C-alpha cells in the first residue's frame, strides 16, 4: 500500500522535479503511515532517491521504452501501482508525465487532480489544494475513488532530505503492441540552452524592446544568470523571437523561481501564464504599466540603460561571490 511515484531519469541522472516529487511523496507517505516506492524506466544508478526518502525502487528496463511513449509509460505506472497496491500515485508536472497521467488514471479507475500545490489538506477524505483559474484561484479537490492520482505542480515543493533505503529491484512489465501504435519520426531540441520548462530563472522581453535587433542584452542577461529566454505574445506574433519562447496563457507556462520582465506591460493573459513564478521583477519605462501591480520588485526606467547596467553589476556580483 505504498505511495507510488514515477521519477523521471534523463541524461544520466534524476531530474530535479523527480527529487522534489520524492521529497513530497515522503511526507504524504508518512501521513498515511506507509512508505514510498518509485518506478523508473531505463534508469542507471537510482541510489540518489534514497536521499529523499524513497524506500523501494522498481526498475523497469526495456529497449522498447527508450523513447517516451505515453501509453506504454502509463501502462508501466499502472502495473507498478497495482503491484504495490498503491492507493496514492503521484507524478511530476513535466510535459511527459502530464501526458501519461490521465491515461494511467483511467487504467487504475482513479480520480485525478493536477496542479496540486501543497501536501494534502486531509487524507481521509483525501483532499488536495490545486491551482485553478489560470493561477487566479485555488480549489480544494476531494478524490473519492479508491486509488488517487495527483500531479505535483511545478516548483511548489522544495527538496527535503529524508532517509530511505532506495532498495532497487528489477520490475518486468507486460507491454502490448498496441501501446506502441504511435511512432516517433524525429525530435528537435535546442541544444545547450536552458529550457523554459526546467529553468530556475527566466528573462523575458516584450514590445518595449522595439525590435528583434535589440535582444542581445536580453540574451546576455540570461547568460549571466544561467536563465532561459522568453518573450511576450506580441513579440512572438511579430516573429521577433521564436514562437517557442512565447510565455503566457496560450504560450508556455512559467513556474520558475525568478521571472524578469523587460519592456512587457503585463496584459492579463501574459500574467496568467507566468503567475506561478515565485519572484517577479519588472523593468519598464511606464510607471502605470499593469505589470507593476503583480511584481515583487520593479525598476521604472529605460530598459536600454537599466539592462546593460544590471548585466555589468551582476557580473561584478558573481565575480565577488564565487
Amino acid at each position, binding site marked *: 500500500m505504498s505511495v507510488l511515484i514515477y521519477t523521471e531519469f534523463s541524461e544520466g541522472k534524476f531530474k530535479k522535479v523527480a527529487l522534489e516529487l520524492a521529497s513530497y511523496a515522503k511526507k504524504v507517505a508518512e501521513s498515511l503511515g506507509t512508505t514510498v516506492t518509485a518506478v523508473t524506466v531505463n534508469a542507471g544508478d537510482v541510489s540518489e532517491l534514497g536521499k529523499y526518502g524513497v524506500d523501494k525502487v522498481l526498475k523497469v528496463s526495456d529497449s522498447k521504452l527508450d523513447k517516451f511513449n505515453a501509453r506504454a509509460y502509463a501502462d508501466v505506472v499502472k502495473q507498478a501501482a497495482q503491484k504495490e497496491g498503491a492507493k496514492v500515485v503521484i507524478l511530476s508536472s513535466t510535459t511527459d508525465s*502530464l501526458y501519461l*497521467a490521465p491515461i494511467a*488514471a483511467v487504467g487504475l479507475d482513479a480520480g485525478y487532480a493536477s496542479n496540486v500545490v501543497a501536501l494534502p489538506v486531509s487524507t481521509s477524505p483525501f483532499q488536495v489544494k490545486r491551482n485553478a483559474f489560470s493561477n487566479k484561484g485555488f480549489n*480544494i479537490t476531494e478524490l473519492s475513488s479508491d486509488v488517487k492520482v495527483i500531479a505535483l505542480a511545478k516548483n511548489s515543493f522544495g527538496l527535503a532530505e529524508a532517509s530511505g533505503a532506495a532498495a532497487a529491484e528489477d520490475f518486468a512489465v507486460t507491454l502490448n503492441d498496441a501501446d506502441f501504435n504511435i511512432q516517433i519520426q524525429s525530435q528537435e531540441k535546442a541544444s545547450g540552452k536552458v529550457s523554459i520548462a526546467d529553468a530556475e530563472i527566466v528573462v523575458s522581453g516584450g514590445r518595449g524592446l522595439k525590435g528583434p535587433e535589440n535582444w542581445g542584452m536580453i540574451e546576455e542577461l540570461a547568460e549571466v544568470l544561467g536563465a532561459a529566454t522568453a518573450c511576450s505574445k506580441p513579440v512572438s506574433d511579430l516573429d521577433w523571437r521564436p514562437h517557442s519562447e512565447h510565455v503566457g496563457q496560450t504560450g508556455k507556462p512559467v513556474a520558475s523561481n525568478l521571472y524578469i520582465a523587460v519592456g512587457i506591460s503585463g496584459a492579463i493573459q501574459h500574467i496568467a501564464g507566468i503567475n506561478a513564478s515565485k519572484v517577479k521583477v519588472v523593468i519598464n519605462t511606464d510607471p502605470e504599466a499593469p505589470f507593476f501591480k503583480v511584481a515583487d520588485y520593479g525598476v521604472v526606467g529605460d530598459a536600454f540603460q537599466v539592462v546593460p547596467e544590471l548585466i555589468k553589476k551582476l557580473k561584478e556580483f558573481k565575480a565577488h561571490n564565487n
Partner: protein
Amino acid sequence: MKILVCISHVPDTTAKINFTNGDTEFDTNGVQFVINPNDEFGLTRAIWFKEKQGAHVTVVNVGGPETEATIRKALAIGADEAIRVNANPADGFFVAKQLAEVVKAGNYDVVICGKESLDYNGGMVPGMLAALLNYNFVNSCVGVEIEGTKATLVREIDGGKETLNADLPLVIGGQKGIVEEKDLRIPNMRGIMTARTKALNVMEAVSADVKTKAVKFEKPAPKSAVKLISPDNLDELINLLHNEAKVI
C-alpha cells in the same frame, strides 16, 4: 473524414474571479463566457480540414443550456453541426465518459480537444477520452496533417518538438501552434446568420462516476505592493534578489 471538436465554455480571461455560496462555487455574475482558447486553435484547424479535405466537422460541449451561445459561436466559425450533452461537467472523468459516448455513436475519425481549459486547468479530458476509447492520443499538439487514415503530428516537448506518426482514429490535445494565432477564425456576419440554421442537438447524459469534487475555492493571498528600486541603485536590486528573495 469526420472530425469531432470538443469545446469548453469558460470565463473570459479578463473575468474577475470570485467565489460564492460559502466559497463553494465560482461566481458567474457579470462574467462573459467564451470558447476555451486552447479549443479554438483545434476548431480552426478542423475548419481548415473541412475546406481543404472535405471533412465534416461536429462540435460538442458537455453543459447546461447556458452553453448554447458559446456552441453557436463555434457553428458561426464554421462547424457543420453541434451536440450539447445535457449535464453539468462535474469532473474530467465524467466529461470524458460523456464524450466517449458521443464519439462511439458518431464514429469519428479525429477528435480534437484543447489540452487544458483555462478555468479548472485539469488537462485531463483528452487523455482520459483516448484511454476510454482505446484511440491513439497525442497531447500538447502543435501541428497535425492527415492523409487518408494516417496522421503526422507535432508534439511540444520540454525544450523542443517531436514529430510523430499515428493512424486514425485519433484524439488530439491541442494548443496554440496547431494553427497560428493570426490564422484563428472568427465568426463573420454570414457565419453568424447560418449558425442559427445549423443543427444543435441536445443529447441526454449517460450515467458515469464522478471521482473528484471541488469542495472549496480560495483566492490567492493579496499581494503586497511592489518594491521599486531606482535605476541608479541596481546594487540594491541585486542585494534584494540575493538576500531577501534568495533567487540569485
